[in-house]
């Protein structure tokens, strides 16, 4: 549980989370993934020693000429504003409306994704896995936090957390139920454990009733969670797109 917690968690928050986990584990039947709002948290709770430690480290590395603060600003800006699940959503929407593009995407994902201009770090060897009526794919990295950065950005905390990393491979259907995704027994679940330098992204099923939507409207429906495989794309949109 501690592994899943954010940097700003304090002892109180840790215990609260542990208690919630224990209570949920004791509840029979399907449970929703535990949700909380970012706004609920008091960010003054960030341990000041971490803020100070990182400041001290940056100051030393800058003084020694080992890092360029402007380059650091650019890196942060890229991950906060330029790279993220909107990129992946455009790839998915394009694949839904253009069968030739979809074919290229499934055969050579890096090249097809680069056609839309997305090519930076950790995504050089992307593989797209396609969901269908009888196949559902789920992405995990049990050993660390491997994730397709150029199309999804940095992974959310839950993806890097112990509950997800431990259970995605042994209990994928249980994980999916927590996210509200209920699969029929005759659906085949394929879990992809990103142990090497391949980076996986799920091509979700296009929901029924979207025949008249534009590519842009379709992209707006596609969530990060659907591209990781914990959710399906639904109409009207629901769930988190952050």
């Amino acid at each position: 549980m501690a592994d899943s917690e954010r940097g700003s968690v304090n002892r109180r928050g840790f215990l609260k989370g542990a208690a919630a986990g224990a209570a949920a584990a004791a509840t029979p039947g399907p449970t929703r993934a535990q949700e909380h709002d970012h706004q609920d948290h008091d960010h003054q709770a960030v341990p000041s020693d971490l803020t100070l430690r990182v400041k001290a480290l940056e100051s030393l590395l800058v003084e020694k000429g080992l890092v360029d603060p402007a380059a650091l600003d650019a890196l942060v800006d890229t991950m906060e504003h330029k790279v993220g699940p909107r990129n992946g959503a455009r790839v998915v929407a394009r694949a839904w409306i253009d069968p030739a593009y979809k074919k290229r995407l499934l055969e050579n994902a890096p090249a097809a994704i680069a056609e839309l201009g997305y090519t930076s770090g950790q995504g050089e060897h992307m593989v797209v896995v396609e969901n269908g009526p009888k196949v559902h794919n789920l992405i995990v990295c049990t050993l660390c936090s491997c994730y397709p950065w150029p199309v999804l950005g940095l992974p959310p905390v839950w993806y890097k957390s112990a509950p997800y990393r431990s259970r995605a491979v042994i209990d994928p259907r249980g994980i999916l139920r927590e996210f509200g995704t209920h699969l029929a027994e005759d659906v085949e679940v394929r879990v992809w454990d990103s142990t090497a330098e391949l980076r996986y992204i799920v091509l979700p099923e296009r929901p029924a009733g979207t025949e008249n939507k534009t590519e842009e409207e379709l992209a707006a429906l596609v969530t990060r969670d659907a591209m990781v495989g914990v959710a399906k794309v639904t109409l009207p949109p629901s769930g988190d797109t952050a």
Partner: protein
Amino acid sequence: MNGVHDMGGQQGWGPVQYEKNEPVFHARWEGRIYAMTRAMLAWRKWSLDTARHALELMAPVDYLRTSYYERWVWRLEQQVVKHGLVTREEMESGRAAPGSAKATPALTLATSSRWLNRGIASSRDPGVPPRFEVGQRVRARNVNPTGHTRLPRYARGKSGIVARDHGVYVFPDTNAHFQGDKRQHVYSVQFSARELWGDGVSPRDSVYIDMWDDYLERA
């Protein structure tokens, strides 16, 4: 190494803790350590494999108690000293040693996009032949290396089928320890859920794990 980071199949962690509208970074320091970690890799004093292993070396209780980016802070503090970019005295005082030469950053604003777009080295090098072919039945070796490995414990000794050949990649088990890149083929190997976990799971489900040649033997 059989570390706590190798989490696949562990039980008792409870439900996934989901945060709605999660920001990319939860505090400014998270973004700074993320950026510094990437920028320092540009010095090429260590590889991504070495960096991954560095996290595995964290004491288990600390690994489990700290947040993701807090582990990155600990790691970078260790790495810069271990690989000679910063002295222990400088780390302790927070100041560059008097009279020490100032370097030019390996990653600057001008070079950052070129660096970040550099691919992870892989190839279809015909000089490195595959030992296995798609459709072949294979077994993950039952080994317990004490250094870095990307062969998760839950797969060891289990049999599967080669689903894809991804081409040739650097071998992390040696590369992490500066023992050469030992390039070899990587495959997606399909393991049935029942092979991994027994009869209590769906007969339809599988886990696909990326495996280097050296992790596999004929089954």
